[in-house]
């Protein structure tokens, strides 16, 4: 049981890994095709048995009919006997009742011989007729001359025939297969004979006056049989021997070369049958030894082959239909697998109303819902990120303003508040998008606030082509970079130079923010760039360079992988390059998201 269980488990496991069409086909073969074949095999076994019974019945019927037909030929010998037994002239001659030789001769010529001749002419199955008289003629006794009438002393057949006729009855049949056994005119055309002997009685039936011999052409009878032997064998049993009857494809005949056999050889095949039919009023029996046209397994295999062919067409149609459905599912499945790598995307196919179409439609709706939810989440992050900037700056700036007021530097405080108000006005507008000009203005406000706060000089230059002035970009995207340059690049007691330049390369727009501060080593730049290219992490979000990580993440969100920050080591400082895609960033963001 255990190995069987393991076997089924293995099949189940393997079938589980099969593609759906193959699995369907396997299920079809196992659950429908194979059971149907088994059913047909079982059903055909019944059909075969029925067919074999029919065959057996047909053969038996043919054999019975042949025996009847055989018997009907024998009736002709009875007719001969009746005719001659009722021929008074013959009886008179055999009883020597004719008064003269000439009378006897004329009687023979006119009343006996014509009768015998007409019988021989009319019955092609009757080869010869001989009459053996118990009381010999006084004048007609030359056996060669009076051909049809012989003396009983010329009876050359085995003595037991006469004994049987005397004791057992009035007729006896004898099978003569050898030409030396019979007397006939034409030995060249000898055919095996079935000879029937009859007692001829006197006119008053008080005594037997002779014996009638009727030779029937056995092959003539056999040729007339309508039994179709084919591959089968027909035998004639006479006495204890079985005489094989040959068949030339059209007719039966007894070949003198055929040796009689003590038993019928039965084929070892399972379909071998022996049927028998007795020929009435004789010791003859017909035996048919035959093999059924087909054996059980042959017939069953034939039926199975036919069933297989019948099932083959619907199987192919089934496969085609299954494939058509499964192929849609497989393509959908493949799309989902690819979506795992590239992100979930809609599955665009012609709409259908069936179950698979419904699943695809629902899937697309689900994708749309997920994307919307993600958008909402991104928006929330964005606002949260934006808000992460504000507290540092506000606190420091307000503290500086308060200090200036304490020091009664009211003009500076006023200017600072003015700049700060512009800065915050822009900052708290919380727009989704802005322009490079607004962003640069915002940087300038920031630097000015920084100047007021730190009371230090910062050299800020901008190199921006005029057509990029209104280049649309995410809101508050450059200020964190400048803030970072100031935080990490500023050298003590030296004026920091911050230069902003804009360039383009194909679809990309680069905004380079250069500072001539402390810069970074090559390895540090490399490490920083690697970190920026990694997925957002808590470390980046919460540790140092929060602003840069935020900017990088937002750029990538809006512009995809092509967007983001890259640091470039300069001989006299460090450049932070922000990559934008030269399209509407809203559209670009969606487009990149698809990829």
């Amino acid at each position, binding site marked *: 049981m255990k190995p069987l269980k393991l076997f089924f488990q293995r099949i189940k496991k393997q079938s589980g890994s099969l593609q759906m069409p193959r699995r369907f086909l396997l299920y079809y073969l196992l659950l429908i095709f194979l059971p149907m074949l088994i059913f047909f095999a079982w059903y055909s076994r019944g059909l075969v048995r029925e067919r074999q019974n029919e065959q057996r019945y047909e053969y038996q019927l043919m054999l019975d009919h042949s025996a009847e037909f055989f018997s009907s030929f024998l009736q002709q010998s009875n007719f001969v006997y009746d005719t001659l037994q009722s021929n008074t002239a013959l009886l008179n001659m055999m009883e020597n009742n004719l008064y003269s*030789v*000439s009378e006897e001769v004329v009687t023979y010529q006119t009343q006996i011989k014509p009768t015998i001749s007409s019988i021989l002419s009319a019955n092609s199955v009757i080869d010869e007729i001989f009459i053996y008289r118990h009381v010999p003629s006084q004048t*007609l006794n*030359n056996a*060669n*001359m009076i051909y049809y009438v012989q003396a009983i002393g010329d009876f050359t057949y085995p003595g037991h025939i006469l004994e049987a006729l005397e004791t057992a009855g009035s007729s006896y049949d004898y099978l003569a297969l050898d030409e030396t056994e019979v007397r006939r005119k034409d030995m060249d*055309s000898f055919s095996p004979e079935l000879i029937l002997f009859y007692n001829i009685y006197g006119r008053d039936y008080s005594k037997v006056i002779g014996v009638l011999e009727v030779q029937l052409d056995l092959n003539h009878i056999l040729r007339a049989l309508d039994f179709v032997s084919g591959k089968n064998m027909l035998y004639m049993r006479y006495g204890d021997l079985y005489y094989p009857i040959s068949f030339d494809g059209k007719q039966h005949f007894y070949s003198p070369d055929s040796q009689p056999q003590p038993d019928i050889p039965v084929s070892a095949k399972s379909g071998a049958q022996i049927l028998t039919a007795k020929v009435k009023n004789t010791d003859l029996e017909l035996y048919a030894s035959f093999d059924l046209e087909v054996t059980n397994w042959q017939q069953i295999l034939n039926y199975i082959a036919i069933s297989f062919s019948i099932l083959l*067409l619907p199987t*192919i149609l089934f496969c085609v239909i299954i494939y058509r459905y499964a192929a849609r599912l497989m393509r959908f499945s493949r799309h989902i697998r690819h979506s795992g790598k590239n992100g979930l995307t809609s599955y665009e196919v012609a709409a259908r109303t069936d179950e698979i179409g419904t699943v695809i439609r629902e899937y697309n709706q689900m994708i749309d819902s997920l994307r919307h939810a993600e958008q909402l989440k991104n928006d929330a992050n964005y606002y949260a990120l934006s808000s992460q900037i504000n507290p540092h700056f506000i606190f420091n700036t307000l503290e500086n303003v308060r200090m200036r007021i304490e020091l009664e530097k009211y003009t500076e405080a006023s200017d600072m508040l003015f700049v700060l108000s512009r800065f915050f006005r822009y900052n708290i507008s919380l727009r989704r998008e802005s322009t490079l000009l607004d962003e640069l203005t915002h940087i300038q406000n920031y630097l000015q606030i920084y100047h007021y706060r730190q009371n230090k000089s910062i050299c800020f230059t901008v190199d921006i082509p005029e057509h990029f002035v209104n280049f649309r970009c995410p809101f508050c995207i450059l200020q964190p970079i400048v803030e970072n340059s100031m935080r990490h690049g500023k050298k003590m007691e030296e004026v920091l130079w911050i230069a902003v330049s804009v360039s383009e390369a194909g679809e990309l727009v680069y905004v380079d923010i250069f500072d001539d501060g402390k810069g970074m080593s090559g390895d540090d730049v490399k490490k920083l760039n690697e970190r920026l290219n990694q997925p957002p992490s808590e470390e980046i979000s919460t540790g140092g360079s929060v602003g840069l990580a935020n900017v990088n993440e937002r750029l990538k969100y809006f512009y995809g992988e092509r967007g983001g920050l890259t640091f470039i080591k300069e001989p006299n400082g460090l450049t932070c390059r922000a990559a934008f895609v030269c399209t509407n960033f809203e559209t670009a963001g969606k487009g990149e998201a698809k990829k």
Partner: protein
Amino acid sequence: MKIRVKRCLLAALALLFCLAACGPGSSLPVPDRDADPVAEEPVSLSCYINHPWYVAGSFQGVIPEEITRQTGVTLDVTVATDNAQLGVMIATQSLPDLIYSSSMLDRLSHADVSLCYDDLLREYDVDWLIGSDLRSNALTFSSDGRLYTVLNHYSGTADWQDVPGSPMTGSLLIRQDILDALGNPTIRTLEDLKAVYGMVRQAYPDLIPLVYDGEHRFNVFLNWFGLGTAEFVEQEDGGYRMLYRDSRYYEMLKYLNGLYREGYLQADNFVSEESMTVVPYRTGNAFSYSGCTQNSNVSMNAYLQELDEGYHSVELFPLEGARYIVSDIGWSGSFITTQNSDPETSIRFIAWMFTPEAQTLTQWGREGIDYTLGTDGVPVFSEDLLDSVARNSFAREYNPWFYFGGSAIVEAMGRYAVLNTEDYEQTYDAIRENYENYPWVVAALPTAGQPEKEIYDKIMSNYVTYETKTILSVADEEFEENYRSFMDHLEKSGVLQLEEFMTKSIKERKPQYLESAENTK
């Protein structure tokens, strides 16, 4: 995928269907000796031979094979068991393709039974110009004047003048070895013969002195009595009397009765089967055999010498006063029946049978192989053929029995060629010298539908019975009584009317034949 689906569907349909599925020209070939004999399947024609004595029971042997090779025809032969069988066949319309018969010619020459030769020759454009004598002979039996057959073996008296053989006529075979043993007594007269029979009976009591052939019966005695076998005999007044009413016939009966009463002739012979009458002579149990010149004495000698090399059979030299008068308009005719399956092949086959090459082939064998022509026109047979004759296997091996268009002269020359000339030359010369054919007698016979025909048939069907009774009479009184009974029967049957008819009819037909014979000269 679509293509694959279509292919699969087609393959499936093909497989389905596959498994579901598991569930002679009439013209006669042109004779060509070099042609492959089996190149074309021969046309088989069923043929009924209305001669119960016929030896050939099948169309097999050297000559039939050559006939088939040359004509493309093979025959499925049935030989009559007796003379009554054909009548039954005609009555029941159980007819084969061809009937070959010498009797019942008038019944066969009828549109209900046979097809007209002239119609067939015209319809199938067969090139066969039937001679006037042959046509006239055959029309003798036709009630509607149409030609239904052509009789073979016809020859006029003049035809035999320069032929070394003998025409077919009654002949007596005797055992020369016994004659020699008896001192070779002279047999010139009937009484000499009777005396010899007596000597034979005395010396060989188990030997039957005389047996007669069922076909030719006592024709040889009719010849020796100067009567011949023509059924009507011209009288001094120019009228014709039936043979049986001629005084010479009476003398012959008397003579035969004497032989019977002396025990020289057995009663058994009168009930004998035609094919069995020859058995006593052939088996050495008879001294003489009344048959005809065409009964091959060669084969008889072969049988006898198988028994004892000293046995020797010869044809008895004609006795004094012998006249070999026959009325012969031919022997047998081939009839193409109305139930013939292939009339065109049949008429072409029969037309070919009457060609000279067919006549020699059917009776002599293949020229250049089985015989070559000698200087006198007599065939010189090959050693193989002669050997088969000597071994008595000629009939079986060569089977020269299908001479449907045969010539009596060709046959006679063929038979003569295998004989020892010294034994037969004088005998046959004597026969020919006394041979006369009166074809007009048979030609003048009444035909079906004429009242005299019924008279003739009645007499012919009964004469044997009366003849038998007369010959088998055991006393002179009984003989005379039986003879008178015979004559009474003839008269009651209307023989006088028949003789009157024949006298008139012969006077009409005789000039035609004489004129034809004159033209032939």
